[in-house]
Structure formats: structure tokens, C-alpha cells
């Protein structure tokens, strides 16, 4: 067992941890990273990336079944489900390899194992309960992420009741499934399996799908999903699972009545819970609130020299937020000038269902709740040349402004490629642009992004193509 000393030690190699490690090393600090499973964390191995690989396939499948609209004809369209899943695993493996390379390139020492705080700047690393190393570090950053939340009665069993892990690596295509929870994860799997040809039911406890999004987005998304054949039950909860040998009868309570739905598989996507256990936090002053580590705006815990970033702290639980926190945390440790705390309202969120959903900032309802007098603009895909040419006429772009100052409070988009466009509004928000600056920005024609312009114009009664 080796004992080594570092300036910065990061526990967890996901998008929060590995980015923090690279940045620390860039700033001249001797840096180590402890990872117990795969570099790249959930995001890269079991989340964002492999699901995007899968969703790409379901998009292709959708397109192949709509070839006629574009003047093509093909018979006997079929797919090899194993190949589709294998492809997504290869994508994940390739990227995880890239992170390993990045660690080497940036002189970050990687320890394979589980890190545990011993107090006084010490961390023990073990692998399969065998000690690997004892590391001393001036600064310890906890970036251990989160895992799927488990609801009683809805415990995953790896066979009939899946979490995202099983849902991502099925051996065969289920004919029908029921997704519990209509947040980003639930809806992405629902959309994937629906477009691959499964019969999909979504059960949501709130009164609408994608409940964190603007109401208009939720309403539109629901209509669109239902048009595609998805069954959506809102204000409902799963009360009982009657498991068979290769199927499940799900009892869903809606408005006091029980509805029984028989499906091949159930996916539980009811949120996440932080990985804050077994970290040796009891050896420190680190505070934990409902499983999440409590930090200040600089990601510092109550224990001097111990920090936490990403999913293990408060939300939103998104990879890009974790990475950004990693950078803020490390730059603050180095005491760089011009380090700024994260602004939650500037963190965009993307959901890769079909149609895609992307947003940043306040919803219209939230803005009103906060007392803003708002100006709202909306522009539909059907009014956009590029959208019509692409055959993607479903969706809209909504913008919410503070009527008093012209501040862009929020932007909400649904439709093709919106996840690639939202960062335009992200820049606008970060730079604190007003409606005037957005109106003065020249958007290239023909692009979907022109809708972003039109939406702003619409908020001020100046829309052109509507």
C-alpha cells in the first residue's frame, strides 16, 4: 500500500470530478482522482452519452418509417436490437478511454477504488475492501454523484423492474413497457422505446409531463407524445406490481380508481439520490441534508479543505452543472481573480425525447410568481423555412422577458434540434443581454435559430413571419 501526498484529491471521476481534476492540474496543483468504476461516471457510461446513442437509433427508425414523406421507398425495414445496444456501449467505452487519456495528459494520478475520508486531509482508497492507498491531500473534492432513487414497492430487480442501467442494456426489445416518472430520464426512455416500436405507458405523479418545464412545453410535449401513440397518465401513482414470469401487471391509482396495466417491463425513473454514504463524512464536519452534501457558493463544505460538487450536492442534477462547479471550486481553491459563483438560472436543461425539449431560466409561471411583469414571445416551427424544408414542423420557441428591464428571464423550446440551440439564449443570459441586443443580433437564414429571433420579436409585438 502506498502513501502519497497531493494538493488536490478528487473522489469520483464523473463529469464533475474529472473536469475538476484537469482544471486543478492545469493550475499547477498536484492532483489525484479516485474512481471506483468507470472514468466518466454515470453521464458518460450510464447516462447522457449512451442514451444519446440509443436515441439516435430511434430517430433513424422513426425516419425510416416516414421515408415516403421525403420521396423514398424501402421495404422490409428492420433492426438488430443487440447491435443497437452494442453500439451505445462502444460509444461509452470509447469516451471513457478518452477520459483516461486526458488524465494521463494532465498528469492526474488515477486510483482505482473507493475513496473514504479519514479526517485531517487523509483519504483511504480500497478496492474490494482491500486497501489500495492512503492519500494525504490539502484539498479534497467529493464528486461521487448520485444513483437512481428507489421507491418502496418499486424496487428494481434487474429483470422486470429496470433502472436506467437495465433500460440501457436490454438483451431483447420489450413489446410493452411502463415508465414511472416523466422527468428527463423517464421521458427519454419512453421516447426511445416508443420510436423503436414498443407500446409505452408513462405514469406521472404530477399533473403534467416534464414537470420542471414551462407549462406550455409540457402541454405541447404531451400532445405530441400521445399523437405518436404513447399513453400518458398524470396525477397518478403506481401502487402495486404483480410480477409474472416475464411480465408485470401494474396497478395505477388515478383519481381514486385503480387501473391495471400489463406490460413486459417497468422502468423506474423517479429521481435520484446522492451517493453520500460510506465516504467517511462522520470523520468530518461535513453536513448532509436529505442525502445531499451541504456546500456554500464556492462548493466548500463545513469541513475546511473538503469540497463537494455535482449530483452529490443540491440540484439541478446535470452533468454540465457538475463540470462548471468543478471549475469554480478549483479556481476558488487557487484563489484566482474573477471566479464567479454559479447562477442557477443560467444553467440550461435538455431532454432528448422526440420532439426535443430545451430550456434555460425561469418559466413564465415562475417569473410571475417572483413578481415580474412579463413579456412573452412565442414562435412556432411551422413559421420557419428551415423547419419546413427539414420536415420538422412540430414545436415552438418561447421567451420570457422582464417587461421593466428587458432582461431575458427564461427561454423554453420544443422541437427538432432545440438542444443545440438553447446555448444561444444561455450566452444571452450570461452576458445579461436585453431584448434589444437579441433583436440586433443577426441570425443566419435559413436556420432553425431564426425562431429564437422571432420569439424575441414576438414578445415585443414585432414578429415578422407570423
Amino acid at each position: 500500500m502506498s502513501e502519497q501526498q497531493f494538493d488536490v484529491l478528487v473522489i469520483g471521476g464523473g463529469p464533475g470530478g474529472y473536469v475538476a481534476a484537469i482544471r486543478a492540474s492545469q493550475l499547477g496543483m498536484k492532483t489525484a482522482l479516485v474512481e471506483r468504476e468507470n472514468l466518466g461516471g454515470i453521464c458518460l457510461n450510464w447516462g447522457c452519452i449512451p442514451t444519446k446513442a440509443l436515441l439516435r437509433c430511434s430517430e433513424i427508425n422513426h425516419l425510416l418509417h416516414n421515408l415516403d414523406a421525403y420521396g423514398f421507398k424501402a421495404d422490409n425495414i428492420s433492426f438488430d436490437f443487440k447491435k443497437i445496444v452494442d453500439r451505445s456501449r462502444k460509444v461509452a467505452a470509447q469516451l471513457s478511454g478518452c477520459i483516461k487519456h486526458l488524465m494521463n495528459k494532465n498528469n492526474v494520478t488515477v486510483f482505482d477504488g473507493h475513496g473514504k475520508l479519514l479526517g485531517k486531509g487523509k483519504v483511504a482508497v480500497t478496492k474490494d475492501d482491500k486497501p489500495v492507498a492512503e492519500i494525504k491531500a490539502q484539498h479534497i473534492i467529493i464528486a461521487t454523484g448520485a444513483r437512481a432513487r428507489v421507491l418502496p414497492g418499486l424496487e428494481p430487480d434487474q429483470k422486470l423492474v429496470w433502472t436506467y442501467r437495465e433500460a440501457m442494456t436490454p438483451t431483447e426489445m420489450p413489446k410493452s413497457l411502463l415508465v414511472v416518472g416523466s422527468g428527463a430520464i423517464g421521458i427519454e426512455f419512453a421516447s426511445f422505446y416508443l420510436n423503436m416500436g414498443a407500446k409505452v405507458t408513462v405514469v406521472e405523479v404530477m399533473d403534467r409531463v416534464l414537470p420542471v418545464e414551462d407549462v406550455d412545453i409540457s402541454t405541447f410535449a404531451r400532445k405530441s407524445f400521445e399523437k405518436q401513440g404513447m399513453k400518458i397518465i398524470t396525477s397518478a401513482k403506481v401502487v402495486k406490481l404483480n410480477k409474472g414470469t416475464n411480465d408485470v401487471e401494474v396497478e395505477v391509482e388515478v383519481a381514486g380508481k385503480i387501473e391495471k396495466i400489463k406490460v413486459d417491463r417497468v422502468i423506474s425513473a423517479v429521481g435520484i439520490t446522492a451517493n453520500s454514504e460510506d465516504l467517511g463524512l462522520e470523520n468530518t464536519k461535513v453536513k448532509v441534508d436529505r442525502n445531499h452534501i451541504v456546500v456554500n457558493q464556492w462548493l466548500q463544505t463545513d469541513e475546511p479543505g473538503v469540497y463537494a460538487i455535482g449530483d452529490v450536492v443540491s440540484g439541478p442534477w446535470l452533468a454540465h452543472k457538475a463540470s462548471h462547479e468543478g471549475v469554480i471550486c478549483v479556481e476558488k481553491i487557487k484563489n484566482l481573480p474573477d471566479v464567479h459563483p454559479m447562477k442557477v438560472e443560467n444553467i440550461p436543461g435538455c431532454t432528448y425525447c422526440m420532439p426535443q425539449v430545451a430550456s434555460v431560466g425561469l418559466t413564465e409561471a415562475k417569473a410571475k410568481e417572483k413578481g415580474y411583469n412579463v413579456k412573452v414571445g412565442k414562435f412556432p416551427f411551422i413559421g420557419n423555412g428551415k423547419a419546413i424544408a427539414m420536415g420538422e414542423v412540430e414545436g415552438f420557441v418561447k421567451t420570457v422577458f422582464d417587461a421593466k428591464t428587458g432582461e431575458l428571464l427564461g427561454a423554453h423550446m420544443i422541437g427538432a434540434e432545440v438542444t443545440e440551440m438553447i446555448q444561444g439564449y444561455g450566452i444571452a443570459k450570461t452576458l445579461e443581454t436585453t431584448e434589444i441586443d437579441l433583436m440586433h443580433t443577426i441570425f443566419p437564414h435559413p436556420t432553425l435559430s431564426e425562431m429564437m429571433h422571432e420569439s424575441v420579436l414576438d414578445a415585443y409585438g414585432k414578429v415578422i413571419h407570423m
Partner: protein
Amino acid sequence: MPHNVLMPALSPTMTEGKLAKWVKKEGDKVKPGMVIAEIETDKATMEVEAVDEGTLAKILVPAGTEGVAVNTLIAVLLEEGEDASSIAKSADAPAPKTVTPANQPKADATKPAPTMAVVQPAAAAPKAEGSRIFASPLAKRIAKDKGIDLASVKGSGPHGRIVKSDLEKAPAGTATKPATAGAKAPMMHATGPDAKALADAYGIPYKLVPNNGVRKVIARRLTESKQTIPHFYLTVDCELDTLLEVRKQLNDSASGYKISVNDFVIKATGLALEKYPAANVSWTDEAIVQYERADVSVAVATPNGLITPIITDAAKKSLKEISSQMKDLGIRAKEGKLKPTEFQGGTISVSNLGMFGIREFAAIVNPPQGAILAIGAGEQRAVVKDGQVKVATIMTVTMSTDHRCIDGAVGAEYLQVFKKLIESPMSLIL
């Protein structure tokens, strides 16, 4: 080659001005040094002289135009033999400046004199005048709406950029410009009811007197002063009998000049600062500026409003020099003909309303200075001396002070020195 005539910067702080009058007409021949136009800035009217010889071919900005930005093309001069067709080309091409304000070296027309930049910062603006202020569009919008001068705000964004959250802490109403231009502008500081709206509502008859440049500057600077400077006041009585006697002797034996009580006061103000430099200071966020020369700004009432010409290094000047300089400055101040260097700066101010019989008053500190002396009338009052009531000529002086840089005891000690000088005036003559 045609010569472009650009709007000159008459002072380091000037960003725009009013083209008050064209002295020459289109077609007039001009020679270097000839006055071609008059420009009214926020403080004074200045003459613009031609630098090149030629014909005033085209006037591009008509007389009476307000808010002409510095370096705007205002006219074109043609050399002999050139015709008007070359004007258009010239207007686009960068050309050397061909005008300079009268009585100022040419170089000064375009760039701020560095010494002035030191003594004439806006009170809360450590940034050099004319340097670009980085602020987000939203911050600019909010500043404009709230009337906040961005120069007075410290930015917390990337590279010190001013962002929205910085303005939540900033005091409202420090802007150098009203929210919207022209007569439509709301009252400069959008606090309190609009007098005009109220007068309309209650049917009070009135007429509107447009705010001239001086009036706007008074409104802005004094509002800024009262809102940002923590004032306190110290009052002292000075016996004037000896001073009046000395003054009488001096004036009786003099020819060609007459020294006023105010000249003594100016001299004493400066000399007291020299003897007690702790009061010769200005506040900045970074440090207290302790001046090593006492320049006394003297408030002069003009038809346009208050202006404060400066007796530079008043401690070193003789009463006779102060007297004659003050006379000249006073006359030109009333004509609006002071040069910016003559009224911008100063390390302390004196305001004397004694001639109106005002017994005492408290003045507002003239930012960025640290103090102002308000001088009351010298009048005979009953004073008690050694248990007996006697008659003495008393002048009450009230010092208004910026507590950020001058504490009570410091102000009081300064006034002691001042009082001693006034009551033992021989030291002012030496």
C-alpha cells in the same frame, strides 16, 4: 485638401456640447486664429478658432444644436481653388483636427490635460474620464432607468464588468445624464413628485425656464454630494475688527486696487490649509487624496447660476494678487467666459453670502473636495469679554465637511487656524 472641423472637447469631462452660434457663415474666408463658432458646454461658452486657412464651405451642424458629441464633424473648410465636390470625400477620410478652443494650446483641444484629470474626477468615479466603462446591456438599462452613474459603480463581473447584481447595491440618482434626453426627461432624479405634474393638477400658473448647462451641473453635482457625502457642520465666530482696520489702511494707501474682506477670507482659507494640511483632502475608495497645494474655489453667482472659479495656490499669493485675479475671474464668470481650467479643480471652496446680510448658513460640499466654508456677514454684535459686554464686528463661518476624510476634531482644528489668521490679519499680509 478639405479640412474637417470637428466638435472640440473643451474640457476633459466634456462629451457633448451645444453649438451655440456660428460666427462665420458659409463662404466666409477664415484664417488661423479666427473665431468661427461658439460652443456652450455644461459650464461655459467657448470660442472655437480656425487652425487652417480657407473658406468655410459647409456648415453641417446648425447653430443652436444641443448635445453635439465631441469629434462630430461640424463643418468643412476648403483651401483655395478647391470646390465643394471634394467635401463628401473629405467627410469620410480621417483628417487632423482643425479647430482649437480659443486661449488654449492646440494639444489640449483633443486630449484631457493630465493634471486636470487628477484634480477633477467625479467624486465617486475613480475611473479616468473618457475610459470605457464595461457593463452588461442589462446593467446599462437598469442604470439608465434608475439614474445610476455607471462610473460610480464597481463591477463584480468578469474583468470588472458591471453586472445587474452590482446595481442592486448602487445608490440611485447619480447619473450624469437624465434618463431620456431633452425636455421630455423626467425630473433628473425620479424621486418625489413631479412639480410640473402637480402644478398642472392643482392649476398653479407657471412658466418653464429651460435648464441650461450650468443648472444641470449644479443639480447633478449637489444632489450627488448630499446623497453620497456624509456631511457635518462646524461653526465659529471670528472677530473682524482688526482685519477691517488693516484692510482700511491697505486700501487707503493703495492705488488701483481695493482689497475686499473676501480676499482676506480666500487667503486665510488657503493659508490655513497650508498650515494644517490634514484638512486639505478628498475621499476616494482607494485612498485619501492629500493635496500639497491649496486651491480655493470661490463661489460666484452668475445669471446662469453658480460657478466656482479657482484661486490656485491661494496660500502663496499676495492679497493684491488674489484681489485682482478674483476681480477678473468674477467678471468673466458672469459673462460665461471662464476657461474650464479656471473653474475645474480646487481643493476647498468658499461661499460668501455676507453681502446679503446672511448671518450664517451651511453650504453643500463641492465634490470631490472635502470641505466648504460658508461665510456670513461681518456685523457688529454684543460680545461678552472679561465679564463685560462689548461691541465687536463678528463674522460667523460654517464649515461643511466630508466626514469620510475629515473628522470632527480635524475640521475644528482647521477652523481654529483659520480663525486665528482672520483675527491676526498681519500674517495674511506677510
